[in-house]
């Protein structure tokens, strides 16, 4: 794996962002919505990959963390009358804190137990959304969440504005994730993923590295949830289930390419936006997720990203691989 220089990665991301943003000016409302949802899931996937792909831990609690961000935003903006822009960082901080707490608990265990423990936490979270109707609206959902305030100088449709927000959040998440994985902590996370014992023997601060990775992914999952709540105006527990959202995240990241940052974006674009755009029935798209996930984990565990970069290298004459 040869890493691209940082400024080059950021430049490519910015160009992709500009193209996607420009497209939302011309597409019809429905497709703009598809782009918005795709961008939110891509944000989730990138954040999730920092934990799954770069640190090697499968968490099934992230559906609930995403939901926590969404409900926190709903409460703060509609019940306490806060502006979306004030609520957003608060939601990130809240899910970050929750994530850190979960991590402190969950990293006491390893391997299968870690997955099972986070699964349990994800289920408790989902159940809490159901059984606390005073806070969450219960099974009926939370209605009437105010949308993010649109500044007067930005004369675009509301749907386009939302899409731009979602794309911006994705860009910010991508850049932050890029900085994270290239930092010292990122290198330590890789060490944890590859060989925990060796990492310890080399004096790497294993617990702080993986705590940072979990907290990082929780913060951005919360931000994505908050934005989702605000632009949807209605949220219900069914959007935050373990086997819905939690599983979907795993599929996006694995199919896109664990351990790369653009892979998950690709995965989200293909797996979220495409079925939505083609208006495939929910059952069929979940089935497709399952089948694709299985095919990739067996035959191409490094995902589409590695297929593409391998092909590119071959076309490019294979000059970079010694």
């Amino acid at each position, binding site marked *: 794996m040869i890493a691209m220089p940082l400024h080059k990665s950021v430049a490519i991301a910015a160009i992709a962002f500009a193209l996607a943003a420009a497209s939302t000016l011309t597409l019809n409302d429905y497709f703009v919505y598809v782009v918005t949802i795709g961008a939110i899931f891509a944000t989730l996937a990138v954040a999730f990959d920092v934990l799954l792909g770069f640190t090697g831990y499968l968490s099934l609690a992230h559906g609930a963390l995403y939901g926590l961000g969404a409900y926190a935003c709903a409460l703060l903006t509609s019940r306490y009358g806060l502006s979306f822009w004030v609520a957003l960082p608060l939601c990130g901080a809240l899910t970050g804190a929750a994530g850190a707490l979960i991590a402190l608990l969950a990293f006491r265990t390893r391997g299968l137990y870690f997955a099972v423990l986070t699964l349990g936490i994800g289920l408790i979270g989902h159940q809490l959304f159901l059984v606390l109707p005073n806070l969450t609206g219960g099974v009926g959902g939370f209605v009437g969440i105010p949308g993010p305030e649109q500044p007067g100088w930005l004369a675009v449709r509301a749907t386009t504005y939302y899409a731009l927000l979602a794309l911006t959040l994705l860009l910010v998440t991508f850049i932050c994730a890029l900085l994270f994985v290239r930092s010292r902590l990122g290198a330590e996370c*890789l060490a944890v993923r590859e060989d925990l014992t060796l990492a*310890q*023997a*080399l004096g*790497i601060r294993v617990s702080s590295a993986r705590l940072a990775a979990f907290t990082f992914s929780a913060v951005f999952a919360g931000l994505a949830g908050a934005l989702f709540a605000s632009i949807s105006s209605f949220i219900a527990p069914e959007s935050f289930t373990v086997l819905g959202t939690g599983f979907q995240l795993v599929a996006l990241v694995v199919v896109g390419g664990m351990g790369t940052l653009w892979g998950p974006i690709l995965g989200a674009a293909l797996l979220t936006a495409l079925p939505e755009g083609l208006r495939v029935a929910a059952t069929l798209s979940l089935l497709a997720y399952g089948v694709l996930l299985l095919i990739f984990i067996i035959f191409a565990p490094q995902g589409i990203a590695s297929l593409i970069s391998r092909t590119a290298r071959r076309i490019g004459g294979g000059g970079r691989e010694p």
Partner: protein
Amino acid sequence: MSLLQIRDIEARFGGVVALGGVSLDVPEGMIFGLIGPNGAGKTTLINMVSGLIAPTAGHIVFDGACGPWPIAQTVRRGIVRTFQQTRAFLGLSVRENLRIATVHSPDPGSIDELIEACNLGDVLDRTARDLPYATLRHLGIALALALKPRLLLLDEPAVGLTAGEVERLGALVRRWNAAGITVLLVEHNVRFLMDVSQRVAVLDRGRLLFEGTPEQCQAEQKVIDVYLGRRAADADD
């Protein structure tokens, strides 16, 4: 004064006594060899000195400070180990491996020295998993050296290497030692160990059987009986 003093170290796993009160002194600047038949407790000793397992009794004095310490602290104090089944970050390139090991290194230029010291220059962008056995071994040791240890614990570094590779490894170990690193070497390959070490200790069934120079060791009848003799018998099987 000795850099490392092991004092009455004892290790019990359930009812099994792996080490029954072993004391050893490793003087600064020396290559110190440790041999013994299978089950003698060599790896257990390395695990304890490196902080991977806590001893059930006894202590370790390093550079005047009294341990044992948990592994992270042990590394910070300058005791670093390698593993018997060479461990490197197999899914990553050699360059990434070295970057991880030098993450806390105060001196960023040291990677180049390491590459040079361990002959890794030609394989920097190869994935560790694809490296030849001997090169992987060098990488494993490079990871340890990256931490600038004062005491390097080598756990059977010559296993599975060809005669030529063993010779090259011996030259490298001497070079690192000349650069100021004290080495505690655990090895099955007696010829390699006797060749490289300046002082040798023999463990048998969790006890110290002998300590002295390689020449004394090879002349000592009880060592020959217990260790060299048994190996000869093994070879006959």
